[in-house]
């Protein structure tokens, strides 16, 4: 009892010292950034104003955050670290798992119907397009990158390059040769996976940080080519009026041969949106289905074994070169599908859509979701992309903070905060478990503490 009390007292002192130190660092950093504000006054003179209240409240918040962390959060995390490495899934959890996935799939299938019924055809467009389609694109990209990063353990920071290849493949081939969406979709996937293999060859010998840097550079190279090869890609201006996908040959327009006329409906732009929603839903489910299938095939096990120990793989006769290349090719193929869908949906693409921030977003979806976990990635995509979109809807905040307040400008700040919190709470992602691909007697859930992250 006495010893416990003593520990507690030392904790408080340590926490206070840590908080003071953090406050000092925050003061040093924020003094020039927040403390001083330069501006121009009426007679065009440079004036220096000081913002002591703001500065000290921010320093106090930082110090208090540090105090709470080391006083309350850190001991809790230490206790959590002692949980067992394997666990049989509890009955309740197994029940939830069994019903959650069919329920979720059922929900996304009927989602457009629900939205149209509740919001009406006019209001539904925003909810299906901005939320449904946008989130599903990122779910698909997350699942695709999950093959490379989560399963094979190859850190890829240039994933958006394959998305760009898919998008430009569709845009250029559709505009130049007038080929149909359903033909170009697989073709864009094949072209992207070809680029995936092309990237794979030079980086095969690289590991960890070096691999990450080279893939990052590859993503930038692709973007710069798209900007500078004006004759082919039209540079910054991008490609406009890309042909839209048709309903198996029936276009979505107001003409007599359009979708609405053929099916005897009143023309509405929502038809196309709903159709696109189901296309991307089918593509995302295909990605998930193939990935789940691959995990149970020798190639999927070889990917995971590669992430665990590459040398052991070679000693067992696994061609690690081919295994890595197939991982790159598979991941790139799904990005290619998503890219060609993106081009068809927007009808306009430019290099602006394929910047590094996109790669970073997709990677953080995979990392936040839990590397290798399909469900975790889907949840993370919903939170991150849905979160961005929902911030546009928070108009009531303008009544609190004034009419100039734009919540979307605080997006990155909130993402950063959310990411720090989630990484403290769950350092290996939301779903930090690995389900074995095969079992003899019972499927035990493996804690991610045992699973390697891979190093190249």
């Amino acid at each position, binding site marked *: 009892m006495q010893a416990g009390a003593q520990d507690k007292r030392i904790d408080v002192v340590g926490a206070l010292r840590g908080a003071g130190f953090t406050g000092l660092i925050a003061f040093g950093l924020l003094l020039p950034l927040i403390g001083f504000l330069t501006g121009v006054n009426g007679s065009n003179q440079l004036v220096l104003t000081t913002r002591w209240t703001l500065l000290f409240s921010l320093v106090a918040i930082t110090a208090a955050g540090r105090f709470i962390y080391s006083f309350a959060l850190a001991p809790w995390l230490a206790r959590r670290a002692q949980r067992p*490495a*394997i666990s049989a899934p509890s009955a309740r959890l197994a029940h939830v798992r069994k019903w959650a996935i069919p329920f979720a799939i059922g929900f996304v299938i009927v989602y457009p119907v629900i939205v149209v019924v509740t919001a009406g055809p006019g209001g539904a467009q925003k909810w299906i397009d901005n939320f449904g389609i946008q989130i599903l694109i990122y779910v698909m990209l997350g699942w695709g990158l999950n093959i490379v990063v989560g399963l094979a353990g190859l850190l890829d920071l240039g994933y958006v390059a394959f998305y760009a290849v898919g998008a430009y493949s569709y845009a250029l081939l559709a505009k130049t040769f007038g080929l149909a969406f359903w033909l170009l979709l697989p073709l864009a996937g094949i072209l992207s996976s070809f680029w995936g293999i092309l990237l794979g060859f030079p980086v095969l010998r690289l590991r960890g940080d070096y691999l990450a840097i080279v893939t990052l550079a590859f993503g930038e190279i692709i973007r710069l080519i798209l900007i500078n090869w004006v004759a082919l890609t039209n540079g910054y201006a991008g490609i406009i009026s890309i042909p839209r996908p048709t309903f198996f040959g029936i276009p979505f327009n107001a003409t007599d041969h359009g979708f609405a006329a053929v099916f005897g409906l009143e023309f509405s732009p929502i038809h196309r949106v709903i159709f696109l929603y189901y296309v991307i839903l089918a593509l995302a489910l295909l990605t998930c289905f*193939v990935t789940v*299938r*691959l995990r149970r*095939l*020798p*190639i999927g*096990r*070889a990917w*995971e*074994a590669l992430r*665990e*120990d590459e*040398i*052991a*793989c*070679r*000693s*067992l*006769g*696994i*061609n*690690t070169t081919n295994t890595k290349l*197939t991982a790159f090719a598979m991941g790139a193929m799904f990005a290619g599908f998503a890219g060609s869908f993106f081009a068809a949906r927007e009808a306009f693409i430019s290099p602006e859509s394929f910047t590094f921030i996109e790669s970073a977003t997709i990677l953080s979806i995979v990392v936040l979701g839990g590397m290798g976990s399909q469900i975790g990635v889907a949840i993370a995509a919903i939170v991150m992309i849905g979160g961005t979109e929902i911030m546009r809807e928070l108009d009531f905040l303008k009544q609190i903070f004034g009419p100039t307040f734009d919540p979307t400008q605080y997006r990155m700040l909130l993402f950063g905060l959310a990411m720090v919190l989630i990484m403290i709470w769950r350092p290996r992602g939301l779903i930090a478990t*690995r389900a*074995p*691909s*095969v*079992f*003899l*007697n*019972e*499927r*035990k859930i*493996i804690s*991610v503490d*045992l*699973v*390697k992250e891979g190093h190249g």
Partner: protein
Amino acid sequence: MARDGSTVLRVEHLTMRFGGIVAVNDLSFEVKRGSIAALIGPNGAGKTTVFNCITGFYKPTEGRLALQRGDPALWNALEDLTDSGQRGRVRPDGALFLLERMPDYLVAQQARVARTFQNIRLFPGMTVLENLLVAQHNRLMLASGYTFLGVLGFPSYASAERAALDKARSWLDRFGLIERADDPAGILPYGAQRRLEVARAMCTDPVLLCLDEPAAGLNPRESAELNELLLVIRDEYAISILLIEHDMSVVMNISDHVVVLDYGVKIADGAPDAVRNDSKVIAAYLGVADEDVAKVEAEVGL
């Protein structure tokens, strides 16, 4: 094909240099089919380097490493094969390979040389059973039609996977790991991890099994159990074993043949008893010159 006295592995004039350091110098020895050969020597003698050369992880600076399975008459084609510049020759009745010409994964896949590592290299986040299935990767890959048929759910893959599971189960039974089949390999106790690594190597259907200090860190009982298992592998499955070992109870009890290395040079080669009494070997292990052995032995009371 079992113990007919023919050779399975022939190491000739193996030299491995790292810059100016000669790790292995002009080493030659043979491993007989269905026998257990031990490679021993003081720390830093170059034993693991020899293993890395045989299993293709290092390219030897000089020398020839030939492995043969099936009809021993294939050895007659050795010079012909060496001159031809090819990696190996496969015939319906056997095969002959020049290991120094093959990359590591082909040594395992085609020449069927399996190995374990001094510091255990399992797949810790995968279950014991998955570890053994990864070891059967190449056969399963073929059965899944290089993934294409497998994704579409062709029945040929399902039956191949069942066969692979049966094989894994039989080896788990043999090695006393069947109770732990669904546990991640990373939480097994040390001795069980050692056994699992050998079981995983056995799942690749090896011709030659190379074990790098299989008894390191095992207690005397576990070490005796391992001896039994290695004898079973040799006698029932007619698999040749080459092992590096410091535990003399393992070396002396089960090896048919011992090769002693010191500073990369072979200093003795023969039956365990002959090697045990070799004055050069004793001198190397005691770390003294040949002529001082008697004096040092008297000092330490041998």
